[in-house]
């Protein structure tokens, strides 16, 4: 019999499945669970984009596109980035349309990281960064972000983590799971540390449209001297509620994008054609739909923050994405214990903060990509749970 232990490299076997995955298995066993655990919008893709996809299918446009994606789409992305993050990218050679933001992250890492390299990963953050670094033979180096700093990346923590081996910094803002964002002046301090180094920034801006109150999202790429050392990763999943279409993109300096495009060519060929046409419509005709969704998220955000603060689980005010990250330390439980007890006793699923890195311990991630009715029902059950703990 074949010995899979020998067939599969140790490096791959050592990768831990995401803590989210483990929690998903628990949630599935419990009947009648209501969830506040998803990382995708509850809205449907705007109708205009769906209609365009139907239209494209009817016309039989089902062939591969250019490797980097339809040129019309790259032009629209270029225009969007120019308006939204005030940074110019040439549709020819500086933009790749990818299979979700995830592929863009994977390409960036594989194009940059070699054995011996260190990649700085601010945590808590999305679960995929460190495993990809590891697969590339690099070493992920977590940088702890804390509630005292509103879960923002501090320039001095960054400085302290940099070594001669540092290849890249992941910049995951607006942040999943904390909902924190980096304002212009805070990014400026980060940029100051990086200017004049050979450290690349992989800026995961997938939630960039979802910022609340004050100035809109600022990309580090737009700061002086930073475009040449930044790969911007974004996509259609969150902004246009298009998670299942699997479409994202990256924009960056030509020499890096050139290498990433080779990897993309060999592993993907080109991103889904129908999705690409729908994305053109999303970018050009769906602004009103997006604004309506954003207004709705903002209302829910305030409702959920108030809900947790009222029940005594203090919750710093998140300014981005669609998550809140209440602190559960007052219950004396670990986050995984809190979440398991909550799901078994009240049938509400939230995700342990520890799934997003050790510094997420003591917190839980709560998604508000749900209807107000759903949210109020779930909050009520969590409130009962917390009350019963006090007895």
């Amino acid at each position, binding site marked *: 019999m074949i010995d899979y232990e020998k067939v599969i490299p140790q490096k791959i076997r050592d990768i831990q499945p*995401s803590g*989210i995955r483990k*929690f*998903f298995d628990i*949630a*599935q066993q419990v009947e009648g*669970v209501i*969830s506040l*655990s*998803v*990382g*995708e919008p*509850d809205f449907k893709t705007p109708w205009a984009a769906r209609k365009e996809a139907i239209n494209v299918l009817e016309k039989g446009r089902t062939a591969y596109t250019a490797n980097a994606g339809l040129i019309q789409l790259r032009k629209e992305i270029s225009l969007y980035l120019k308006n939204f993050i005030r940074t110019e990218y040439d549709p020819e050679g500086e933009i790749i349309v990818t299979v979700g933001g995830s592929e863009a992250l994977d390409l960036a890492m594989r194009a940059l990281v070699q054995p011996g390299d260190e990649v700085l990963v601010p945590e808590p953050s*999305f*679960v*995929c960064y460190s495993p990809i670094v590891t697969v590339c033979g690099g070493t992920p180096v977590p940088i702890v972000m804390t509630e005292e700093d509103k879960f923002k990346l501090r320039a001095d923590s960054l400085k302290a983590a940099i070594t001669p081996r540092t290849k890249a910094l992941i910049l995951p803002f607006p942040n*999943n799971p904390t909902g924190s964002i980096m304002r212009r002046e805070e990014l400026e301090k980060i940029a100051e540390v990086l200017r004049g180094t050979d450290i690349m920034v992989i800026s995961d801006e997938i939630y960039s449209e979802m910022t609340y109150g004050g100035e809109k999202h600022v990309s580090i790429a737009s700061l002086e001297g930073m475009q040449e050392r930044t790969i911007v990763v974004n996509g259609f999943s969150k902004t246009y509620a298009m998670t299942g279409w699997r479409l994202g993109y990256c924009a960056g300096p030509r020499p890096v994008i050139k290498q990433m495009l080779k990897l993309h060519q060999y592993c993907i060929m080109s991103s889904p054609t129908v999705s690409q046409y729908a994305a053109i419509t999303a970018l050009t005709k769906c602004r009103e739909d997006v604004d309506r969704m954003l207004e709705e998220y903002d*209302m*829910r955000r*305030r*409702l959920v*923050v*108030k809900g947790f603060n009222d029940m005594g689980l203090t919750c710093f005010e998140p300014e981005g994405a669609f998550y809140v990250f209440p602190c559960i330390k007052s219950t004396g439980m670990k986050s995984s214990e809190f979440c398991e007890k909550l799901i078994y006793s009240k049938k509400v*699923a939230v*995700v342990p903060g520890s799934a997003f890195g050790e510094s997420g311990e003591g917190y839980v991630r709560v998604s508000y990509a749900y209807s*107000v*009715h759903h949210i*109020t029902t779930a909050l009520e059950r969590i409130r009962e749970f917390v009350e019963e703990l006090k007895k």
Partner: protein
Amino acid sequence: MNNVNKKLLDLLKQNARLSNAELAAMLGISEQEVTAGIKQLEQEGIIIGYAAIVNEEKADDNAVTAIIELKVTPFKDRGFDDLAHTIMQYDEVDTVFLLSGANDLSITITGTSLRKVALFVSERLAVLDGVLSTTTHFVLRRYKEKSHVFNEEHSDERSLVSP
């Protein structure tokens, strides 16, 4: 209507059970402003009541809802209002609308049995002065009402937990 009241109305139309504190948090205004806004909406007759949206099939297995369309002769000077007002008085009647098109009045009634609804139509409605004809449609299944979906547990296709 001012912008705050418009937003209040939108939220209350979806869920009238939100507390003033919740509404205030969602709109980023004070509770006092919410109280004042709702009071104004009520006083101006914009909000005329608050009622639960009920899945009648689950509440009462025998409950029957029917939509009855009436052709009527309008009275001189008073149009359709007189008849509509008469029909409104019956407790069984949930809604009364004046329609454009082939029929004139549309009425929704909910009864405890098919027979009771049928008798109501033949003994109460059909005999009214001015009623020329009635067409009764029994409701077989409810899918959506006031933008609330019945049997919603099947509508969220997303995975329970995702990154």
